[in-house]
């Protein structure tokens, strides 16, 4: 039986997902200024597209998520990352809506990324893969949505990096987005966000097994570096309160300190576990590319320095949601989005949800999140006649 990491590697080329390939005749013009082709997009769908093609909802995944939003993950065997939100009879009811989730450009679960084979060399791209942006991810998703014959999405929904894609979708294709839910996100990365990502990237690149990005060819894997990157990042996904509540200063399966550098504390053991399970399913180079895409995201800069200009004349209905204890994308980031949408005259709703669970709250069972999203989606569906 192949190991999880071997299975993960095979997902990059031949995923357990539907796949659409865009050939050399349909190149994707990247923000970096070059054309990318051929392009493969791996995606999952749930539910049925109605005859009027008006009930499609696109879910955008976060940095370490993927398209397996509401099904058993082919590598880890775990439930989909938003299965509490999406499924038959659930808030995003797949008996009623047609839900699409695509692996983003640059990732490692079947959409073209640095671990895909470069058709020119027959070897994995590695660092020859072009640096992509949030906008490039959205353009690739738009090609998929068009391929599926959908001219307007009922809603585009996502948290964190997924929320950045939601904002880019709404700015880039206002007529194709009836409603948008950017959650726990920002219209740009802060210096602190970029700083944490740089720590992660440097950890990966400092691992001798990274081999200048050519580890797949050389048969090594920079699991130590990627694991450290994940550990550092994971701290930013939780609040200080959540860490304290979960672990405090409790010791891990021992009565007393060992006076060593073993994982004495539960929090150490937890982070090590987060690191080691992450490297089984995620490609180190993809981690570099996706964090870079987030760092480069600055929607205002793309629109003459004024965020409101990104949404001028937009008829899309927005529902912006933040969490009180999220310090990675604090409420002030969401308020900046709301101010811009207001200035642009776009219909926008906003709530800040009380939670001590930090950034990751958007993935968890937060009743206030569910009631807000449910009410918004219901009203949007009603207005769209779904």
């Amino acid at each position, binding site marked *: 039986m192949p190991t999880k990491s071997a299975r993960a590697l095979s997902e990059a080329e031949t995923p357990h997902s539907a796949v659409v390939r865009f050939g050399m005749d349909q190149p994707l013009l990247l923000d970096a200024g070059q054309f990318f082709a051929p392009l493969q997009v791996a995606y999952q769908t749930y539910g049925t597209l109605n005859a009027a093609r008006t009930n499609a909802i696109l879910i955008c995944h976060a940095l370490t998520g993927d398209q397996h939003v509401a099904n058993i993950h082919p590598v880890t065997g775990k439930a989909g990352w938003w299965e509490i939100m999406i499924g038959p009879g659930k808030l995003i009811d797949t008996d009623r809506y047609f839900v699409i989730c695509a692996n983003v450009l640059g990732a490692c679960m079947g959409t073209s990324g640095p671990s895909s084979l470069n058709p020119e060399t027959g070897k994995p791209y590695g660092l020859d893969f072009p640096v992509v942006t949030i906008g490039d991810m959205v353009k690739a998703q738009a090609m998929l949505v068009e391929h599926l014959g959908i001219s307007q999405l009922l809603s585009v929904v996502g948290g964190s990096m997924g929320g950045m894609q939601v904002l880019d979708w709404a700015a880039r294709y206002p007529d194709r987005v009836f409603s948008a839910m950017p959650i726990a996100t920002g219209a740009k990365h802060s210096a602190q966000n970029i700083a944490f990502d740089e720590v992660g990237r440097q950890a990966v690149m400092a691992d001798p097994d990274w081999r200048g990005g050519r580890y797949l060819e050389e048969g090594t894997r920079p699991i130590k570096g990627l694991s450290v990157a994940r550990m550092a990042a994971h701290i930013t996904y939780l609040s200080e309160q959540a860490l304290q509540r979960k672990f405090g200063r409790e010791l891990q399966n021992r009565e007393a300190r060992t006076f060593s550098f073993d994982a004495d504390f539960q929090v150490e053991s937890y982070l090590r576990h987060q690191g080691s399970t992450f490297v089984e399913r995620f490609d180190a180079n993809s981690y570099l590319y996706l964090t870079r895409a987030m760092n480069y995201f600055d929607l205002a800069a793309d629109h003459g320095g004024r965020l409101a200009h990104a949404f001028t004349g937009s008829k899309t209905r927005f*529902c912006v949601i933040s969490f009180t204890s999220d310090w990675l994308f604090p409420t002030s980031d969401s308020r900046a989005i709301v101010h811009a949408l207001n200035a642009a005259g776009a219909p926008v*709703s906003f709530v800040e949800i009380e939670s001590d669970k930090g950034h990751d709250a958007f993935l968890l069972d937060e009743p206030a999140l569910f009631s*807000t999203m449910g009410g918004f989606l219901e009203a949007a569906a009603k207005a769209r006649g779904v």
Partner: protein
Amino acid sequence: MTDAELRDHSAATQARVDYLVVADMVTPGARVLDVGCGDGALLTLLTERKGVDGRGIELSREGVAQCVARGHAVIQGDADTDLIDYPTDCFDYVVLSQTLQATRNPRKVLEQMLRIGRHAVVSFPNFGHWRVRSSLFFNGRMPVTANLRYNWYDTPNIHFCTIADFVALVDEIPARIDKAVALNASGAELGFNAPWWFWNIMGEQAVFLLRRV
């Protein structure tokens, strides 16, 4: 009905009368911002009857969630601190319904409203009403009436004013009064020709349509 139910019933009826007066002051199809929009009842009324393009601000998350579920675009925020973020002249009407007395700085809030919108519609309970006066005069106690149902120590209403006080503030800002309506305890409009002093005693609540000068 018990006394409490009667009070609730009367309060609910009055709220609706108050909303109807506000709705009368708004032109059809206008862009309206409802500050302190609660569960969205006024926004719904304005959207259905006047076809307005309505938006709201509401302090409580539960209120925002109810508004959002009714299809309204409402932001969780505070009249005292968040109006400043709206561009000048982005609404035709900015409505403040029974909320002025709960703001920390009523004058600033009014000024912001008149900056954001060409018109401001303000409704508030009149602290000059005879019931309030008699409660103070005869009992020497802060009034607790159908319209003012809190004790002094737990009330969110920190800046009560009378109709005369409000008119003086409008003069100071300055703004123009395009229309004013006072409602008596049963929700009926007081005669238009009655003098201010009469309104100030008989009006339980008042609704003003203001315009920037």
